[in-house]
């Protein structure tokens, strides 16, 4: 009797298993050809040549827009719309041989006129480009033939090819440039699908792409601002990954789950306590030094980023060959900090504001910094801002005392030589150094100059130098080809595919 029943049960179990096996082997076996990536910030618009927001580049650069060159995943520069180039002896003239047969998404041909238009647009008086100063180094753009362009610079620019490989220098068509903010038209492997404001941006595969066609048919960038919602979206499978996951405390959980791959790489993001050098009392070097002595970098990295991040002592990425460790310029030393405050005539401290944009590093870092600075008598009022407000008040309006932000552009130490930059920092010595750097193309000599610059701004304590932002990515373990590091602001999807 027992045996009889047992065999029945076994048969039933087997039948059940085969049903399961059948279901498992069922319909979803064709390789997936779409991907949905979560991004924390919605791009303000979709034209990378008309805004400083990294959120724009992270959607459209490389995927939809291409430049003459492109910064690749390892930081090297590769040819894209330019097939090859020659540089004159004096380093001032670049002759680009352009790729033939490239079409914009609207069907028009790409040629030398588009290059001339795009570069001249960047340096025009009414240019909205975030890197206008870089474009202004261009003397003239000459169309030699439809597939050849000669670019003459005012003086040699050492990293000109790298600059051309960033989102700010992509090539756009004169006919569509004005509409790119809402309806971008480029030459990339993906074309614009739709933008549902507040929700997502869809890209679809471009059928007439000049290069290797991408494996994905559709890519969606979904805007999820809230950390807890981002976590749930990953767990529920609503998104396939976050190139940058904003709540580092959740990474161990993802890492323990075989469904996900946690990939921690580097970014070009120097996370700093930006200081308004033109405003009292921050114009006083002693006050800035006191602040530098009061900062506990380890506490900020542990407390705000749960250990993800590398301490920095100047405005330079630790993984760069020219990096100089300046973290011990002003080691944490409260006594020294208080003494400096007293020397500045502020023994009783002062009150100031700390404006905080939305990212975790800023909001959490702000609370920790406020506690650090309180110890030397500086009372900070924390003011949380949305990105649009931050860009308007702090970045453009320069109306701030202190703020925390990550500068995610590569090798951007030259911003310290810019007159109109929001740090309000003026140092002729550094300006001369940067001018020299621009005119130098020998890599070893450039690195030497980069080193000197790091030292100057570290000693001047222009800003509080906190840490290099880590690229804390998490995505489906079957999703392959996303970048580990972020040498340039982009989420390159050209090599992304689903593994079976």
């Amino acid at each position, binding site marked *: 009797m027992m045996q009889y029943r047992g065999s029945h049960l076994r048969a039933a179990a087997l039948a059940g298993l085969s049903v399961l096996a059948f279901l498992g082997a069922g319909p979803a076996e064709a390789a997936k050809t779409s991907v949905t990536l979560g991004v924390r910030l919605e791009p303000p618009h979709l034209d990378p040549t008309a805004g400083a927001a990294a959120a724009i580049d992270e959607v459209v650069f490389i995927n939809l827009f291409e430049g003459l060159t492109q910064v690749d995943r390892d930081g090297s520069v590769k040819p894209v719309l330019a097939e090859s180039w020659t540089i004159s002896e004096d380093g001032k003239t670049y002759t680009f041989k352009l790729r033939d047969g490239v079409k914009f998404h609207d069907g028009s041909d790409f040629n030398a006129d588009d290059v001339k238009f795009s570069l001249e647009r960047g340096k025009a008086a009414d240019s909205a480009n975030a890197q206008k100063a870089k474009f202004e180094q261009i003397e003239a753009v000459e169309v030699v033939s439809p597939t050849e362009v000669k670019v003459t610079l005012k003086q040699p620019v050492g990293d000109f090819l790298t600059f051309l490989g960033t989102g700010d220098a992509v090539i756009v068509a004169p006919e569509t440039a004005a509409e790119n903010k809402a309806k971008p038209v480029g030459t990339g492997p993906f074309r614009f699908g739709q933008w549902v404001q507040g929700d997502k941006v869809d890209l679809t595969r471009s059928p007439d792409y000049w290069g290797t066609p991408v494996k994905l048919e559709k890519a969606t960038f979904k805007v999820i601002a809230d950390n807890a919602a981002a976590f749930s979206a990953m767990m529920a499978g609503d998104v396939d990954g976050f190139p940058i996951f904003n709540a580092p405390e959740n990474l161990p959980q993802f890492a323990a789950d075989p469904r996900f791959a946690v990939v921690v790489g580097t970014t070009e993001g120097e996370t700093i306590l930006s200081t308004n050098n033109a405003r009292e009392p921050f114009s006083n070097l002693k006050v800035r030094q006191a602040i530098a002595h009061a900062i506990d970098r380890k506490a900020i990295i542990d*407390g705000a980023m749960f250990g993800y991040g590398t301490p920095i002592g100047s405005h330079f990425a630790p993984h760069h060959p020219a990096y100089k460790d300046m973290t011990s310029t002003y080691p944490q030393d409260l006594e020294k900090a208080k003494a400096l405050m007293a020397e500045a005539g502020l023994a009783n401290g002062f009150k100031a504001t700390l404006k905080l944009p939305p990212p975790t590093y800023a909001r959490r870092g702000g609370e920790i910094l406020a506690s650090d600075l309180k110890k030397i008598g500086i009372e900070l009022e924390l003011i949380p801002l949305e990105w649009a407000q931050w860009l308007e008040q702090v970045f453009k309006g320069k109306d701030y005392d202190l703020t925390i932000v990550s500068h995610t552009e590569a090798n951007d130490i030259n911003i310290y030589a810019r007159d109109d930059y929001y740090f309000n920092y003026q140092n002729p010595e550094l300006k001369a150094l940067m001018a020299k750097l621009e005119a130098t193309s020998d890599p070893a000599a450039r690195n030497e100059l980069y080193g000197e610059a790091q030292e100057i701004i570290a000693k001047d304590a222009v800003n509080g130098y906190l840490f290099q932002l880590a690229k804390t990515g998490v995505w489906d373990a079957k999703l392959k080809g996303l970048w580990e590091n972020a040498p340039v602001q982009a989420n390159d999807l050209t090599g992304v595919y689903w593994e079976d």
Partner: protein
Amino acid sequence: MTRAHTSFVIGAVISGLVALSAAVSLVWTPHAIDTLNVAAKLQGPSAAHLLGTDQYGRDLLSMLMVGARTSIAVALVAVGIGLGVGLPLGLLAARRGGILDEAVMRFNDLVFAFPALLSAVLITALMGPGAFNAILAIGIFNIPVFARVARGAALALSSREYLMAARVAGKGEGRVTLEHILPNIASLLIVQASIQFSLGILAEAGLSYVGLGAQPPLTSWGRMLNEAQTMMAFAPQLALYPGLAIIITVIGLNLLGDGLRDLTDPRLRRRTA
């Protein structure tokens, strides 16, 4: 002791303790909460930190005490707004009647037509997040509650003999309202206030939880919950303690309100006396 007494006493004790700890936090907390000590983060309970520490190494018990202060302050001012505006409106509507009564009551219906918390979210979203706007948002929705209670109670009294006697004796409407109506509806208002107070604490927690209420560095229970969200998996106590604090406080206030109502209800009073 009757049931009403029991709930009143329990409610009063709980509410009193919460109020006391908030008051004490003004002058003393076990640890300062504006000095962070990240090296001591996420510790379990110990002699030094009775409830452990949060992600910045702050003492959780101290955080709860200061958080109570924010919750109570927001709820108190919100009830104050409701009472301060709603009560005169309700009394006026009851005494004058006619078009004024209609206008006040239809306005009340209008405000009531929107779910209170949703509207509070709307107001803070429009005016910007912050504790002040949260107070305003919660306060505005307390106005019709008090207006309606005051009007209803005042109307019920209006034909009582002692009111007529007072009028016959030559007292004006203002004095009648102040000296005779108000004292007689006070108990109702107190009960309503205790209920609105607990709702105010819930609303503040809700608004802060979604990021529209208290902003850093101001601590509140809702904000503690908000920050604990992403750490639930490895530090559930960060969410548990403020959550419990909210539940216990709201239960305490509701028991207090229930007890007060039963004790002050004349019909019940007669029976239990």
